[in-house]
């Protein structure tokens, strides 16, 4: 009986393993065809000088990639992208976590406050950016405030100042992303049993020690998600740059995404723009995946 049953189980196991894969094949084929093969086929243009309108494109090999690393504007865009993403990821996550901790339990009005902090996330990036552009303009509210409090010497056209232009975008990004970061940390905090915190308090642990030794290790999965998402968001920033500074003054706030747009659509250099897109894709993939591995390893250690 048992000898006859064993092959039957094997058959069932085999069939149970293969049938769902057959069912999923059409969906996988569609995803591959429309998301990866189509995009991958477009990478061919990165090795051409196609201008977006001619019927034929000339193969130029790696010329576009050489130009990226030789062109000061493209190199500057790469540096700005990394600077902006680095500062944004740290600031947005620190503030998001701080707000989440503040609104986790004690406050009675926490529901309302959570909604207020989350509101910028659902607003259009472009609309928000235009509002901030007005705030930063020379006759805008920020300079008016500086005037009012007697700090006229600090007045400047913020979005047209080579030193400050990039950081005006940073402010907009943080302002808009903090709400999302807060929600991710709140979800993580909800999953931490209250008893653990209470027990450590009874044992005499200070608030900071409880946070460091109990809350933070248990928040590791939320940190992984929030940091990874904000990294991807920060590296691909586009709307805010285009609306607030347009990448200026003279490339001072240009990022890789805006360079791609300008080279491709404003200058009609589709081949070069595609090469820049490839560089950005590789950069985001490498940074996001390696960051994910590091954070996952840290989660296991905690």
């Amino acid at each position: 009986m048992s000898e006859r049953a064993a092959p039957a189980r094997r058959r069932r196991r085999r069939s149970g393993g293969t049938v769902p894969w057959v069912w999923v094949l059409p969906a996988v084929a569609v995803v591959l065809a429309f998301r990866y093969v189509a995009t991958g086929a477009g990478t061919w243009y990165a090795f051409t000088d196609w201008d977006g309108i001619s019927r034929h494109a000339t193969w130029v090999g790696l010329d576009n990639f050489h130009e990226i690393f030789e062109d000061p504007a493209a190199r500057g865009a790469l540096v700005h992208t990394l600077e902006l993403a680095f500062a944004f990821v740290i600031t947005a996550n620190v503030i998001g976590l701080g707000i989440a901790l503040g609104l986790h339990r004690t406050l009675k009005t926490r529901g309302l406050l959570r909604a207020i902090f989350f509101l910028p996330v659902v607003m259009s990036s472009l609309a928000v950016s235009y509002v901030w552009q007005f705030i930063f303009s020379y006759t805008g509210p920020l300079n008016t405030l500086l005037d009012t409090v007697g700090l006229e010497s600090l007045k400047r056209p913020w979005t047209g100042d080579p030193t400050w232009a990039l950081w005006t975008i940073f402010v907009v990004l943080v302002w808009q992303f903090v709400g999302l970061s807060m929600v991710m940390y709140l979800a993580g905090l909800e999953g931490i049993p209250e008893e653990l915190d209470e027990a450590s308090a009874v044992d005499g642990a200070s608030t900071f020690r409880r946070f460091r030794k109990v809350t933070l290790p248990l928040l590791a999965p939320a940190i992984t998600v929030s940091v990874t998402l904000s990294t991807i968001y920060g590296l691909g920033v586009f709307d805010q740059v285009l609306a607030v500074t347009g990448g200026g003054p003279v490339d001072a706030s240009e990022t890789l995404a805006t360079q791609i747009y300008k080279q491709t659509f404003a200058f009609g250099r589709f081949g070069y723009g595609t090469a820049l897109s490839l560089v950005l894709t590789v950069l985001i993939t490498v940074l996001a995946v390696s960051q994910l591995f590091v954070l996952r390893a840290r989660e296991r250690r905690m």
Partner: protein
Amino acid sequence: MEAVTRSPRRRPTIYGLALAAVAVVALATGASIASARSQETTIKVLAQSNGQGNPQLQAIFDRFQQLNPDIKIDATYLPIGTTYANTLRTQLQGGNGPDVFYVTAGSGGLQSVLPLAKAGYVADLARRPWVKTLPLAPANKPFFWRRGKLTALPFAVVPVGVMYHIDVLADLGIQVPKTTSQFLAACRTAKAKGKYFLNLAGASAQNASLFATVLATSHVLAKDPGWNLKRITGKTTFAGTPEWRRTLQRIVDMKDAGCFPPGAEANDNIPATPGFVTGQVVSWTLPSSIIGLLKSFNKEAKYNFFAMPGETAADTRVNASPTDAFAVWSKTTNKAAAFKLIDYMATPAATGRYANLTGAVSPYQAATGKHIIYELRGLGGFLKVNSKVFPLMNLSWPNPAVVETLGKDVQGLLTGQKTVAQTLADLDAAWGT
């Protein structure tokens, strides 16, 4: 009694006959409607928007539809720049092009007609009946003709100059400047009286480059009208032209003289507009086709134009370019209707009406200097003298990167990020991309 009471058997017959009659009438009517509809042709037009749609152009299309009830125009208006250019390119490449579409003259812009003609997307208009009567200055012919084919209809000539508030200028006691030194003096006077003389949207590459090319016309082309051709044939460079150096130096001088309002380097077109329409800033380098829009913001304001002065009054030149043009898609299946629309748009009535509505000049008005609108009278004297009128220099530049670089570097001159020498080198580098 029998005569009154009809037999129940005959009723269905009568109803049947009535129904059949109604059906025949309905079918006949339907057939005639269907027949009329089958004779109606709808042509797709893609054109530039100015603010909300383009009511001035729509007025021309409405009139055409009244005159040609068998042709319906389905017009789409998109903002000029990357949105318009990329929609047009995508539609043309996808084989779903508009039958008639807006283009600009020459080759230096995103929607320039010559690259589209080179790629085979525009129909030849050389045999249209208006070709021999529609005036096109010899200097402008290379922007439209390619290998014996006419690529587009030059629909409107757009003068570019310095638009100013008549009343504000008078209140400040400033005369229209006729030389560079008078211009700089006007800046100092306006600033001393709490106003600014010249507006600039420094963060808009289009406006900053327009300002620089207009200034260059009265410096570079005043000395050497053939400079553009020399640059195209490689006989000169930006860096090797002293007049280009002087043009860019004048921008720095204007900044130092306080010509521009604070924050001009950070302003895009929209944030720069309120300062001008309220009269806080006296003047602004603009194409005349913007008059209608600016007048709608402040109906009380009285505007005129003056020509951007050169070093001397004799050097002063004016830009007037046949920038607004319309082409027919080479693969349109509605060629007859599309040509009919283009033929109508080429008439003096249509071009004149459009010019008067927008603030542009029709090709016929440009040829005679007559019947141009009130606000352009300050340029009228120049427009009558062929040797003092030039199309915008960038129309014949080889790619959009040159004019974008010029705009970007003008902003750099204002912020101190660029020197005159760096700007000239950047322009020569962009020429070769």
